[in-house]
């Protein structure tokens, strides 16, 4: 079952091409620095990946900040424009206003250089995000540790599960992936390919089957066969569709029949391009499925994912992971400092 490293290797082979793509317009590819303690196969440091991925987005905002602040006082008009720039990063009016006020409190009327502004902005964003930057803690004592993955259609649930599977398998855990998206055409095949790539076990039912029934079977089987982690995919659903949310609630209910504490984690996958609708997604998926943490995908575009600041302000749910590409390695724990620096257009160190 874990012998699927050949499949994993295929991914590794792709890496140079991937890096080229990821780093897109960057003049020179990032040096491949092995992470100090991680297994030797690990890709360049996470920070370089994130900043290169985010650099395109942050330059857009960064540029705006340069233009605005090169030789100006931090007066009301400047702050207005800063607020607008934050809104353009998807922070939303409320969070943008809060950040603006925080900046105004300390520095109003002072001369401020571009670097000062970026620094202050990064600090403020980081302050908002630090409390929510928590890794997903998989308790080894709980077996199987059941993770339910939910989100709207096309947010990247299945890909995220593929990445999670790679992580857990690399950690030496016995992993089951449950193909709970029985609705979308070929969703089961898609997860099956991820299972084969990562060496996880696929548990699938028939297309069109009741996902709750599958959840029950899968959890029972994972328990009997001694799996460490079970990750359950679900069909994408819009949070305002009551009947689909009821179906999700049933999946959760049924899992509890096997293990009253399950699902031990409920991961809501958010697309980085999502706007203020993310607030409604977190609220309603939270209500229905008891979301315990967030993952943000597709941060390799120009989207800035600024809505995470608004989400932190309002819900304070942990942000576990972010995804910046399509292979299993384009995935890492969420770091408030890096993310804040990227949003404020502060360059990385390497």
């Amino acid at each position, binding site marked *: 079952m874990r012998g699927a490293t050949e499949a994993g290797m295929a991914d590794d082979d792709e890496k140079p091409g991937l890096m080229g793509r990821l780093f897109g317009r960057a003049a020179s590819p990032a040096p491949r620095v092995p992470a100090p303690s991680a297994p030797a196969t690990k890709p360049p440091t996470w920070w370089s990946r994130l900043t290169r991925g985010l650099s395109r987005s942050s330059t857009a905002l960064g540029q705006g900040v340069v233009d605005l602040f090169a030789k100006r006082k931090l007066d009301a008009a400047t702050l207005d424009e800063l607020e607008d720039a934050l*809104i353009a*990063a*998807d922070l*939303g*009016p409320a969070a943008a206003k809060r950040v603006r006020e925080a900046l105004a409190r300390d520095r109003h009327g002072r001369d401020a250089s571009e670097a000062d502004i970026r620094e202050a902005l990064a600090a403020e964003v980081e302050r908002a995000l630090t409390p929510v930057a928590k890794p997903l803690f998989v308790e080894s004592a709980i077996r199987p540790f059941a993770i339910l993955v939910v989100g709207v259609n096309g947010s990247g649930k299945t890909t995220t599960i593929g990445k999670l599977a790679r992580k857990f398998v690399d950690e030496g855990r016995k992993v089951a992936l449950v193909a709970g998206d029985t609705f979308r*055409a*070929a969703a089961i095949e898609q997860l099956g390919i991820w299972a084969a790539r990562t060496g996880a076990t696929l548990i699938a039912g028939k297309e069109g089957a009741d996902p709750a029934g599958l959840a029950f079977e899968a959890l029972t089987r994972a328990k009997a066969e001694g799996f460490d982690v079970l990750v359950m995919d679900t069909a994408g659903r819009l949070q305002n569709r009551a009947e689909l949310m009821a179906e999700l609630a049933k999946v959760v209910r049924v899992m509890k029949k096997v293990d009253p504490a399950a699902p031990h984690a409920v991961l809501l996958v958010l697309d980085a391009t999502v706007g203020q*609708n993310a607030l409604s997604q977190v609220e309603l998926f939270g209500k229905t499925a008891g979301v315990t943490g967030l993952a943000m995908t597709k941060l390799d575009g*120009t989207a800035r994912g600024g809505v995470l600041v608004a989400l932190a302000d309002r819900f304070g749910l942990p942000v576990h992971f972010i995804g910046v590409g399509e292979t299993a390695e384009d995935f890492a724990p969420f770091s408030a400092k890096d993310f804040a620096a990227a949003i404020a257009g502060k360059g990385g160190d390497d």
Partner: protein
Amino acid sequence: MFESLSDKLSGVLDRLTGRGALSAADVDAALREVRRALLEADVNLEVARAFVENVRQKAVGAEIVKSVRPGQMVVKLVHDALVETLGGEDSGLDLAAAPPVAVMMVGLQGAGKTTTAAKIAKRLAEREKRKVLMASLDVKRPAAQEQLAVLGRQVGVETLPIVAGRGPVEIARAALEDARLRGFDVVILDTAGRTHVDEPLMAEMAEIKAAANPHEILLVADALTGQDAVNLAKSFDERVGVTGIVLTRVDGDGRGGAALSMRAVTGKPIKLIGVGEKMDALEGFHPGRIADRILGMGDVVSLVEKAAANIDAEKAAKAVEKMRRGKFDLDDLSDQLAQIERLGGLGGIIGMLPGVAKMKDQIAAAGVDDKMVRRQRAIISSMTPKERRDPDVLKASRKKRVAAGAGVKVEDVNKLLKQHRQMADVMKAMGGAKRGGMMGKLGQMMGMGAGMGGGMPAPSPEEMEALAKRYGLPGQGFAAGAPGIPDAPPPDVFAKPKFPGLAGLGGFDPFKKK
């Protein structure tokens, strides 16, 4: 989509409409709130700015129309600006070229390209009788090609057989070649999702374009997209020259900002919108109607069209006749309920009614949902024909039997019967009286339903607003009027006519009106 923008904007504008005179400061304050509402709805910052400026300028130079209050004038200006921003004219797919016409779908990962490709194929095959071939050029995402093949089987449209190892450009060529040989009218090319900053993939997309020479290049974009929507649309357009936009997940509670922004920035029309997961959940995009919906004016035109497509005119005419004579039995009620279901359920209808959007929360809170409608139909179908014609024969033991048959409690049966009796009473009264006194109000209420068809002139948005306020807010009158809500507040005189208002739908005769 659009509800929340609608809530906010109509809130802001409400405060203006009631007033006789407006100062420049009033308008400014309102426009500031409009701007904020737009931003919260994910409208792009630049677009929001331009929008507000546009309205402000028009407001300053606006001619004073005597019969219109200044506040209403502002509402009209905002409405016009919305229509303008959304693109004025309706615009559909353009397939006027030598067959096979290639249609290429592009967009970000997860935007809904594959699903949309299948929906468009179905629409073209069924409505326009075109012979359509689909091909998936997505060799990247696991099982993407299989997904299109499965969808193709579902909608009865052929897909190009999957050959492992072929690149996207090769597949595009093969699809066109195959279509030429076998006489297909349209070839839909579904490409892999890509971010617009992914240079190699963008270059590949340009290659596909060069090879396939598509007549339509549709950018598929998620209606839930935030501020990035504009960059996205711009980059795709610059790179391959998008011919139109398809907005997906419009049935979500997203706020439609992406729609406003992408159209405004690229000047490319929104051609279609995806409104659900079913394969026929694809609609044309009508800027004027959407603007109405955003401003809470309802979308009666769409409702009428929907009704025309779904309601059996003959049956409807019969029902009207019966109602007029005060003979409205349970079979008729069941038909009415079935029609509500066909029109997209209570939620679907309510969302399109003028002024009612604001009451949505209250309606939801009262537990009015489509399950209830289904349950009521179940109760009726558990009755014998005789009982349906003459509900008075239903005594305790019969009621028990009916309740058991429908899987409900006897009190639910009682509720339904009571509801029916009230409706029948109201209808009888309506049959005799026309306007005047309470009946006049009833007439107006009927206007809400009948405005869609019953023959009375549709009230103006202002009147609707007033009605909604008067009837909708106290004690959830609207909800009370709907049949059999558990624990509904006791129906008052104004609540009663509500359901007939809906039932008035049945009176719609689409063919006569046209």
